[in-house]
C-alpha cells in the first residue's frame, strides 16, 4: 500500500463545478472534433449562466485525436485564455483535468476554467480498433506478438484476476446488463435496447475472456464542465456541486506507456488501490458515504478492480458484490447511472463527471438516484488514474 501523500488534496469544498454541457453522442457526427468541443464547452458555459468572456482557462486531454485548448478558446472568441493546457493522456486524466483546473485557479493562473473532452471516436480515430502498428519503444515488446489493442491489454489483466480470485461470465455480464438498464432511462445514451444476460452470454468472443458486451462503445461526441471557486459559484445559475476531494496516481512500475503493464505488480488490482487513501482522506469521508458512483468502465472488468481498490467492497469480493445486485440503481451502491462507457458512450470517461453533477443537482430525470448527496467519479483502468468526490 502506498504511503498517503503529505497533504493529499488540500482544497476540500473550496472549488465547484458550476456548469455542464454535452453534444449528441453518435457513431458518425459528420462534424469536426473542433465543432464538437466548441458546442459542448459553449453549452457548459451557458448552463453556468456565464459568457465565453468569463472564461480564462481551458483544459483537455487527448491521444492526438482532439483539438488543442487554444482552438476552443479561439472558436468561442474567448478574449483572454490564460491557462489553456492539453494533457497527452487517456482516460486516466478524466478527473485529473478538473483537479488541474482547481490547482490552476488556486495558483492564480486562471479564475474560471472549462474542462472538456471531444473526439470522433468512431468515425475518426478509433482507439479501440488498434493503436499504430509501430513496434518502437515500449511496443517493440508487445506488438510483434499481436498484442496491440486495449481490449487485448485489459483481457490479460482480467485473466489474472480470474486466476487469483475467480470471476464468472455471469458476474461480468451483470455489469453490462446493469449499465444497459440504466441507459434505457438516459435520452443521451447511444445504446438503449434491452440487453439480457442471455444476450450477453451469447455475444461473440472478441478476446477471451472478453465478449462483445464486455467492451465499451466507440463514440463521436464531446462534453464539458465549468470549474471555479466556491465563492464565485454562489452567484451562478445552477446550484454548485462542490469538489470535496480528489487524487491522481498509481503504484510502482506504471510502465513506459499507458499499455505497458509488463512490470505491474498485480494485475488483479489497478491504480485505484494506490490512490484510495489519498482520495478518502482528501474528502474526509469513507466508501460507505457514497450515494452514487460513476466508475470508469472501458470494460466490465474495470469495474471489478475499482470497486475493490477503493474499498467499496472487499478484495476478491467484487464478483459476488456485483452479482448480488449491489451496483443496480436500487442497490447499495448505484453505479454508472447514465449507462457508462459501455452503454451511454465513450467520451473517454469525462461523461462520468457530467452525470455525477446532474445526479447531485437532482436533474437526472427517470434515472435519478433519490437523495443523492455525495458522488464518486473515477477515471482510468490500468496503472494510473484519477478520482474525485463531489457533493451537492
Amino acid at each position: 500500500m502506498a504511503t498517503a501523500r503529505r497533504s493529499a488534496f488540500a482544497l476540500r469544498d473550496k472549488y465547484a463545478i458550476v456548469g455542464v454541457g454535452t453534444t449528441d453522442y453518435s457513431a458518425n457526427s459528420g462534424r469536426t472534433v473542433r465543432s464538437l468541443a466548441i458546442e459542448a464547452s459553449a453549452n457548459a458555459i451557458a448552463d453556468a449562466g456565464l459568457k465565453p468572456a468569463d472564461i480564462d482557462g481551458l483544459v483537455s486531454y487527448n491521444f492526438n485525436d482532439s483539438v488543442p485548448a487554444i482552438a476552443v478558446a479561439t472558436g468561442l472568441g474567448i478574449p483572454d485564455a490564460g491557462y489553456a493546457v492539453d494533457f497527452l493522456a487517456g482516460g486516466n486524466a478524466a478527473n485529473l483535468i478538473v483537479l488541474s483546473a482547481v490547482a490552476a485557479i488556486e495558483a492564480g493562473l486562471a479564475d474560471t476554467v472549462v474542462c472538456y473532452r471531444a473526439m470522433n471516436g468512431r468515425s475518426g480515430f478509433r482507439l479501440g480498433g488498434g493503436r499504430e502498428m509501430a513496434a518502437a519503444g515500449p511496443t517493440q515488446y508487445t506488438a510483434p506478438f499481436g498484442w496491440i489493442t486495449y481490449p487485448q491489454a485489459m483481457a490479460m489483466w482480467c485473466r489474472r484476476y480470474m486466476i487469483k480470485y475467480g470471476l464468472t461470465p455471469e458476474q461480468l455480464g451483470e455489469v453490462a446488463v446493469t449499465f444497459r438498464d440504466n441507459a434505457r432511462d438516459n435520452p443521451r445514451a447511444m445504446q438503449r435496447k434491452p440487453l439480457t444476460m442471455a444476450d450477453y452470454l451469447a455475444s461473440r468472443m472478441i478476446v477471451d475472456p472478453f465478449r462483445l458486451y464486455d467492451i465499451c462503445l466507440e463514440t463521436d461526441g464531446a462534453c464539458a464542465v465549468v470549474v471555479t471557486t466556491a465563492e464565485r459559484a454562489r452567484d451562478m445559475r445552477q446550484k454548485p456541486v462542490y469538489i470535496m476531494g480528489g487524487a491522481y496516481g498509481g503504484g510502482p512500475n506504471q510502465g513506459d506507456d499507458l499499455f505497458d503493464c509488463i512490470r505491474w505488480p498485480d494485475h488483479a488490482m489497478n491504480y485505484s488501490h494506490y490512490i484510495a487513501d489519498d482520495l478518502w482522506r482528501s474528502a474526509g469521508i469513507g466508501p460507505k458515504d457514497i450515494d452514487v458512483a460513476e466508475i470508469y468502465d472501458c470494460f466490465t472488468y474495470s469495474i471489478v478492480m475499482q470497486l475493490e481498490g477503493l474499498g467499496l467492497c472487499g478484495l476478491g469480493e467484487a464478483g459476488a458484490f456485483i452479482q448480488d445486485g449491489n451496483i443496480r440503481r436500487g442497490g447499495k451502491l448505484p453505479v454508472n447511472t447514465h449507462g457508462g462507457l459501455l452503454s451511454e458512450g465513450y467520451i473517454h470517461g469525462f461523461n462520468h463527471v457530467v452525470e455525477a453533477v446532474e445526479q447531485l443537482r437532482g436533474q437526472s430525470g427517470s434515472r435519478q438516484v433519490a437523495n443523492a448527496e455525495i458522488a464518486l467519479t473515477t477515471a482510468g483502468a490500468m496503472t494510473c488514474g484519477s478520482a474525485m468526490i463531489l457533493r451537492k
Partner: protein
Amino acid sequence: MSTEAATEAALAKPVPLPDADSAPFWHGCRQDKLMIQRCRSCRSFQFPPSSVCAQCGSDQIEWVQASGKGKVFSWIVVVHPVPKPVYAADVPYVVALVELDEGVRMPTNIVGCDSSAIVADMPVEVVFKRVSEELVLPLFQPAGA
C-alpha cells in the same frame, strides 16, 4: 509507393525497431539466445531492458542469457483479429505474459498446444521463430513438448 507495395505495407505485422537499450535482446534472438539484463551492483534481473537498474539506480548493467524456462503468468486468446487483414489468418492465437525462472515477465505467443490446454503456472520453454533474415521472435511452448 505502388499500389501493391502500399497493400503489402498495410498487411505487414509490426516489426520491432531495436534501440540502444534493446539491441542486445533482438540480436540475441537471432542467435537463438534469450538475453535479459542483470545489475552488476544489486544482481537484480531486468526486462524490458533499461539504461539503469530500476531497483538500485546503478548503470552497471550486464546482459546474460536467460534459462529460457518459465511459467504462464496470464494469457488471452485473440479471436477477433485487429487489424482484420493482418491477423485474419492467425486467429485464434494466444498472447501470454510468461514469468521466466529469473523472475522477470515477457510478452510472447504460446505455441505448440491448443489454447484450451493452457492453465496458470503451466511450465513453458522458449522456442525461436525465424520471421525473416532480420527478425527472430522468442515464442514459448509447453516445457518438454
